[in-house]
């Protein structure tokens, strides 16, 4: 498997529509510099053509092509009834401009 979704994340995602986007989100340093953080969001991508579409046990993932073969895991976490997806196993990276 190129990317995994934990059972609890799958269940949570199904309740949210069954679609997630896994992408890189840039963070800029205050002295300059940048690092891209892998994030997962329970929604379809704005530009689907830029992503690899994967069907995983009833869940549709749109994954940034640079993240597909990274053995990442999409999981869900939260408390007090609030939850959000996160990507485990990723280091900040630096996508090409």
């Amino acid at each position, binding site marked *: 498997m190129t990317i995994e979704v934990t059972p609890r994340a799958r269940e949570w995602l199904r309740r949210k529509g069954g679609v997630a986007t896994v992408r890189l989100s840039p963070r*800029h340093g205050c002295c300059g510099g940048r690092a891209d953080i892998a994030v997962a969001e329970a929604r379809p991508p704005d530009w689907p053509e830029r992503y690899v579409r994967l069907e995983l046990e009833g869940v549709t993932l749109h994954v940034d092509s640079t993240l597909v073969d990274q053995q990442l895991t999409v999981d869900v976490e939260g408390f007090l009834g609030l939850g959000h997806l*996160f990507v485990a196993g990723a280091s900040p990276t630096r996508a090409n401009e």
Partner: protein
Amino acid sequence: MTTHQKSPSPSTAEGMGLFERLLSLWVALAIVIGVLLGQFAPAVPDALSRFEYAQVSIPVAILIWAMIFPMMAQIDFTAILGVRREPKGLIITTTVNWLIKPFSMFAIAWFFLTVVFQPLIPEDLASQYLAGAILLGAAPCTAMVFVWSYLTRGDAAYTLVQVSLNDLIMLFAFAPIVVFLLDVSNIQVPWDTVALSVLLYIVIPLAAGVVTRRTLIARHGSEWYDNVFLKRIGPITPAGLILTLVLLFAFQGEVILQAPLHIVLIAVPLIIQTFFIFFIAYGWAKAWKVPHRVAAPGAMIGASNFFELAVAAAISLFGLQSGAALATVVGVLVEVPLMLALVRIANNTRHHFPDVRTASD
């Protein structure tokens, strides 16, 4: 490569462009330009100093907001929902950042500036420099830690959580810690002045960042927000920083010309504190068997400072011409070389931590 298990640590050049790698040089140039401006074109700082409202310099406030807002706009507070995921890392980071760092900074700075360097620094200036060090100590890094995490192959999700938790604590802890330590140092600052400083340079930029983030993501989507909006406003922070320093040193010219050695003397406790805090957090993480991908960014956030806030608070509380403002700028001057040294230490000691895996695994 993205996963922390197999990828080699990126080189400094990969994580940081020429501007950020040579930040100390640009800061030094900003000091020279500012001093020259103050000496040969004093009308410029004089004219700028006239734009004041309620004792807040409008040009300085604009520059400070320009420095701070882009960082606040990229904070994703939903990451706080992951606060239970790496409890050991967060306990270490939170304890070191808020229960140790401000007080060790005070102790180290007090010892050097008022005891060791007593023959070299007049007492009133030493107090001012100590105030600047206190402001640096109460403001842990909020943005650059992503770059340090990248350079040490840290855990991206953990870095997001620790930054959002840290920023939330800063909202409530910065002012009381600063007031307490200034009081201990016999430096009187009215509570309302500190409160105004926190309101102007933490609460307002943070609220503006949250509102901007929510509004623009709702309107244009998170990909547009990250890849277009944040990319556009990202360079404003370092530009605002350099311009603030030019302005600050246009006012500080006389101090620098009379006592250039003071910059070196201020740097001594700041450098010692940086290494001290790093090794406390890093050593604690090692003792608790925290994985390196958490230990490295956890140690970096406290070692590095949110110096834009420290500079802003120093200017707001003590004025552009104050020794406190000068001390916070010395923090900027030494930041990048020091943190790159810590990145090297972290990468060279990775094998002492439990999660080392090589590409051949």
